[in-house]
Structure formats: C-alpha cells, structure tokens
C-alpha cells in the first residue's frame, strides 16, 4: 500500500470518504531537545490489557497502558476487519512500539518515557466526537510531565 491510487478500489473509496475536518487554527508547540523530551504514545489500534473492558463500536473511551506493562498482556479489540492483524499477532511493536521506545530511552536518545500510555479505538466516531477524550488525555499527560505525544494509527 503506497497511496490511495495503489490500493483496491473499494478500500480506497472507503478511506477517501472519511471525514477530514478543517480547523480554523494550526497550533504548533515547540519544546526542548529530544534528549529532554518525556514521550508517550497514543494508539488508536484498540489495544488494552486483557483484563480491561473490550472496545465496542463507536467507543470514544480510552484504556491505559502502563509503561512497564508486559506487552504479552495486550490484546486488540478494534472493530474494523479491513486491516492486517497478523503483524500485531507476531510482534506488538509493529503497532505499538513500546520496546523500541524503551530502547531509545536507555540509549539516551529521548529523556524519558511517560508513566502511562493510552489506547483508543479509531473507528465508528466522527473527528469532533473524540475531542473531549483528547482534552482529558492532554490533562493526564501533562500531569505526568509528558511533553511529546506520538500518535499512532492502525
């Protein structure tokens, strides 16, 4: 898959029809060098700990993934069936690269990893419907002194 013109017609049509909001402003926050950044991941892959509640259609909630989680404990309950899940089955890091982030922290490439990371389920809701969740997550991330957020779709 390279661009929309390169993927099957029905899949491309579906993706083209996704609502893409137009915003009035374009916020852009500067910050320290990477070595001083505290980084957290927000994924929309519908991941969560096995004991957490499964995601449901149009679920705008989030699940918490602690930084020291055993990645073997993570499952995926995203509602879409139109993407490959075999990559995730073989290696969680292809979807949620927490091990890679841990390695960058150990190498001093980034300052630190946030204590908590977050997972949403990226299907079934319109863009504006996720704003309240984003507001809440921003507050939680700031409490944890995170100053860099990596947004990872699936």
């Amino acid at each position, binding site marked *: *898959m390279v661009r*929309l013109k390169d993927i*099957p017609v*029905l*899949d491309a049509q*579906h993706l*083209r029809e*996704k609502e*893409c*909001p*137009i915003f009035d402003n*374009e*916020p*852009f*926050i500067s910050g320290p060098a*990477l070595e001083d*950044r505290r980084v957290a991941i*927000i994924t929309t892959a519908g991941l969560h700990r096995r004991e957490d509640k*499964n995601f*449901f*259609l149009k679920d705008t909630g989030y699940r918490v993934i602690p930084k020291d989680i055993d*990645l*073997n404990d993570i*499952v995926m*309950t995203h*509602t879409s*069936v*139109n*993407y*490959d*899940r*075999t*990559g*995730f*089955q*073989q*290696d969680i*890091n*292809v*979807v949620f*690269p927490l091990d*890679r*982030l841990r*390695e*960058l922290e150990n190498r001093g*490439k*980034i300052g630190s990893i946030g204590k908590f990371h977050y997972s949403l389920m990226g299907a079934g809701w319109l863009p504006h419907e*996720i704003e309240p969740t*984003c*507001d809440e997550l*921003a507050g939680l991330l*700031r409490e944890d002194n*995170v100053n*860099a*957020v*990596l*947004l*990872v*779709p*699936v």
Partner: protein
Amino acid sequence: MGHYIEEKGLATAGISLVRENTERIRPPRALWVPFELGRPFGAPNEPEFQTKVLLSLISLLERTDGPVILEDFDEDPPGGHSFEQAGVFCPVGFPKPPVESNTGALREIFAEIDLMQPWYNLSFDKRGRTTFGLSGLDIKEAVEFLSGFIEGNPKNPREDMTLGEFFRFTCEDVKMWYLEAATAKSDIQNSRSAADWFWGETNAGKLLLALHPKCVKHADEGVMHVGKTQLIPRSQEHLLND
C-alpha cells in the same frame, strides 16, 4: 487528534498511513509511511527498521518549520510489503470441505481444530502470548456458538455485553486462533495470503461466510450490524458470491 492535543499545549507527532487524508487535515507534525494498514511501523520482528521509523517520527519534534509538517518515510520494509510477497504457510492439510448439514459442518471444523491444536500450542510457547480469548470461550465453544446462528438464534451467554458485541468478539477469536496456529512454524510473510487461506481454505472461514446471509437479516440489531460491516473483510467479499 494531533490538532486537539497540540491545542492543549502538548507537542504531537503522528504516523500517517493515508497521505491524502493527512494533507487535508493538516496536523502539526506527521510522518507518512508506505506501509499497509495494520503495520504503522513497517514489519513485525524487525526492530532495527521499526527504530528507524520511530526515530524519523520523533525527529519531527525538533523541526521549527511548522505549523504544519508532513514528511515522507520512503523506505519499504525489509523483504518488501507483506501483501506483495508470495507464500502459503499453513503447516497442516485439512479434511474435505464441509458437508451440507450444520452438524456435519461443525464436526468438520472440530476435526480441523484438532489438527491445528498442536500448532496453536506451539505458537503460544514460541511467542509467549496469544491474541485469542476476547469472548471468554475456548475455540470449540466459540465455533459451536457461531454455528448456532446458521439454524437458530443462540442466546447471549454474557451479561456484560450485547449479543452483537459477543458475536463480534467470538468471530475475532476464531480468526485469531487459526492464524496463530498457522504461523507457529514460521512468521507470516504475506498478509493477503493469510487472509485468503483463512477465508478460502478453512472450514472455519467457510462457516463465517455462511453466517453472513443469516446475520445481515438478524432480528438483533447488533448482530445485523456486525454481519453487515464487521464480519467479512472487503478483500474477501468476492467469496460471498461463490
């Protein structure tokens, strides 16, 4: 999401899987990657490559030429894109196609599961994890529950979710179990082949296809919705006409 979170004072950098949509939304920082949906960091079990993608992503945070940055990561994953690779991988041969009756079909699927069970166990030992278990049923219970939709209306055994939701998780469980078993010997190299194998060559896949006409007209709205949009991937819809 990048816009909303950046507006709250936090710098963001996001992976873009569909460049055209990212161009329209104009988030603060985005790294477009040429990978298939489901693989935002390129390829499983390729830590060096994943790190390369991750470093490209976080390096956007050092850029000062905002407020909208869209960078391309142009490198293909090791071995090429998984959907382009050749290869069939299932370690076992299966019994003949299902018979007409529901009972006969169930028996065939159970036989299929018995053949694959050692491979599923091996997969679990090898990886230390499983993605199976969303429904709380074991694999044969899951198949039996789904089979009930062919000729009846199974009751929801869970109080904490709707019938539609339980139906979806059970379907996902069956797919996940089969794919984990099939890849015990070696990791999947071709994601399209994996899907084609499950839907086209397994009795479990054929069961899920047979559920489609039943579910899209089901009395339960949740089951009907799953049947219409969350049961058969678009890439396999052609099998519904076979």
